[in-house]
């Protein structure tokens, strides 16, 4: 049966608490915001068939729309969402659709949960303890930033819980280089003047490159002024597989998934 969203959330919290106490895994994707797991799964199939052609498998195929991040201009409520799915958005490429009620529910259920859907079985711990790990033992703020605090060297994590699933975040914590997404790979450039700059790529095109260097300066380069441009394959982030315990990892993940943006 479907629980009201608030009740479901409480059940999830309770389950998480039991997990940490008893060492049992929590199926993270069960935190479905009041939607049945079966609906989410059916919605995933419908999304693949009807939505992914434009929106992409990750929900970010349309400019300025990130379904995983919940960036909907007009679908803040399920009622609005249903209207968009059935009527489309005039003047845009979003077409009207002829879905039955079950399909509408399923698509909405999946899109509302798609960032977690690939999470698989991930153990979540205590978010408050996780924050302590984040700011202390993990030393994450040496490179990352949350809500204006921390370093800018690595991606800002203020909304990481809204755009990444717990499963993929755990992969990153265990194997940072192996799971590094292409656009997070650091760059090293050498200018014709001999200056070597390492940093995080913010934007690139055929002629230009914008990056944030290790001194946290915004730099813009004409490629014709570069002697070398190398995409590095090793992440500067250390693996936490050995340095954090399983409980600390679970706590850290629990904290990260609470980071939904400002």
């Amino acid at each position, binding site marked *: 049966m479907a629980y009201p969203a608030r009740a479901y959330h409480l059940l999830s919290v309770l389950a998480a608490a039991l997990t940490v106490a008893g060492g049992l895994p929590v199926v993270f994707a069960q935190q479905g915001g009041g939607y049945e797991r079966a609906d989410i799964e059916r919605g995933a199939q419908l999304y693949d068939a009807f939505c992914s052609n434009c929106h*992409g498998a990750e929900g970010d195929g349309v400019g300025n729309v990130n379904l995983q991040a919940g960036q909907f201009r007009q679908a803040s409520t399920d009622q609005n969402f249903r209207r968009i799915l059935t009527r489309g958005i005039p*003047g*845009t*490429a979003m*077409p009207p659709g002829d879905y039955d009620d079950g399909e509408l529910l399923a698509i909405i259920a999946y899109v509302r949960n798609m960032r977690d859907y690939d999470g698989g079985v991930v153990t979540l711990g205590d978010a408050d303890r996780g924050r302590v790990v984040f700011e202390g033992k993990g030393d994450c703020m040496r490179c990352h930033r949350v809500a204006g605090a921390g370093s800018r060297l690595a991606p800002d994590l203020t909304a990481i819980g809204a755009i990444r699933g717990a499963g993929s975040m755990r992969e990153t914590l265990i194997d940072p280089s192996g799971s590094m997404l*292409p*656009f997070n790979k650091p760059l090293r450039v050498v200018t014709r003047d001999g200056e070597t700059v390492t940093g995080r790529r913010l934007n690139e*095109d*055929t002629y230009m490159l914008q990056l944030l260097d290790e001194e946290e300066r915004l730099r813009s380069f004409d490629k014709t002024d570069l002697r070398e441009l190398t995409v590095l394959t090793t992440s500067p982030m250390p693996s936490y597989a050995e340095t954090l315990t399983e409980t600390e990892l679970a706590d850290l993940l629990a904290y990260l998934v609470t980071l939904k943006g400002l």
Partner: protein
Amino acid sequence: MTPRTQRPAIVFTGLTLILAGLLPAPALGQVTFERLVNAADEPHNWLTYSGTYASLRHSTLSQVTRANVADLELKWVFQAQRALNFQATPLVVDGIMYLTQPPNDVVALDARTGRVFWVYEHAPSRGGGSNRGLAIHGDTLLMGTVDAMLVAVDAKSGGPLWRVQVADPALAYSIRHAPLVVKDTVIVGTSGGDQGVRGFLAAYDVRTGDEIWRFYTIPAPGEPGSETWEPCTPDLPACDPDAWMHGGGAVWLTGSYDPETNLTFWGVGNPGPNYSYYQRPGDNLYASSVVALDADTGELAWHFQFTPGDRYDYDALQIPVLVDLDIGGTTVKAMLWANRNGFFYILDRVTGRFLRGQAFSRVNWASGLDDSGRPIQTPQGPNAPTYPGKQGATNWYSPSYSPRTGLLYLSTWENYATIFDSAAVEYAPGQLYTGSRNRSLVKGVPEPPEVGRGHINTWTKEVGSGAVIAYDPLTGETVWKWETFDVINSGVLTTATDLVFVGSREGYFQALDAHTGEVLWRAITGGNTLAAPISYEVNGQQLVAVASGHSLFVFGLRSP
């Protein structure tokens, strides 16, 4: 306005025909069929979507050269009133530019200054996307609409003359391309091939809107070609015995026309469903084919299918480029076609016979073409990447052929693959009907979207990049390649001064050396170019226009 005295040959041609009694005397400035046939003789104008019936997108204007192209400057900009990307190529007729503004308005402008004479607004009842352009006949502008209408608008006042509902938009029919005028008819085709329409081409009387003929791109049972929609067999439980009814075959782009044979040539899109091919066994004619139709009757003269039983959404949505080639000492009336499926073809445009062809991009869905041009298909296994990916090695982006260099110039996607997967899908009117379960090559990184991208690009070449290539049709060699970091959707224009103009997704518009690919000049448009450039002349000045982002930009040489 362009002084008529600058083009005595045009006046002579028109006068000759009028004096010979072949034509009623047209009103001043009217665009007659003869002017369309001889459009190459008036390079100061741009009279059809691709410039001429042969669709070379080649300008013989010569004021802007490789030596002075660096002196190009912005002359004027027209900003659309809606924040939708332009996909249109304008027409220019004797100093007046006619442009479609997204989603579906017609705008008449002073081609010298960009000042607007009038706007004809069409509010589509439904349908997405943008219109790609207009046709003109006499003083009548013809426009298809994204809600599947054909509209005739007076070129002087902007007032409506007639409009007809070509097909039912509730079934996802739409018209995206610029119509093609031949004689006194206007030809349009229907889009909607990703929503299970049964596509068709139809010709209408330009004066009344009465339908003259209709050619369904998917044959009904018993019609020639229907045998390629094979019967269902027990080993195909998802097979649809009536698959042809939702068989796709959209027409996305303007066709070409050969006055000597009176044949008009059109690319036909994918079969439906796009990816779950086991729902529609067989080659699925005339999907993913080019069809040659008698322009007077719509009767099929020949067809050539590029991707039989297309399971990759490769379509055949390119502009048919008509050139006469010397092949082995014989002049051949040829058609050039760099297909989305990664192969380049030369066809005999009189008979449709395959003459030669080979891959122009990375291809692994087929190992090559047999003697008849049929691909030797090599489907990749589960979870294996297929090259090119679903957006293809090229797509709707207009190519250009330069008679001076003998090269075909086109935008391509490089090192781009899709992991194709599918699931059976049930047809529902007006809904997407693709069966897609496709995935990107790199987990966690989406494929480059078909048209959209914001200002930030952090993609890498791991999921694909772009290029403009100069391709020798006779040798199959890529003479040069100019690479772009992002993928590319821009059409290409060549000039008689050996310049190649092309836009990009990255917000640049550039001129390349047609011989080397060297960038000789570039300007910033700040928008994604989904259209193709044109060149025209007004008041003795050659101008180059391109729609990019939400605006149309016009460049000319700096005044001395």
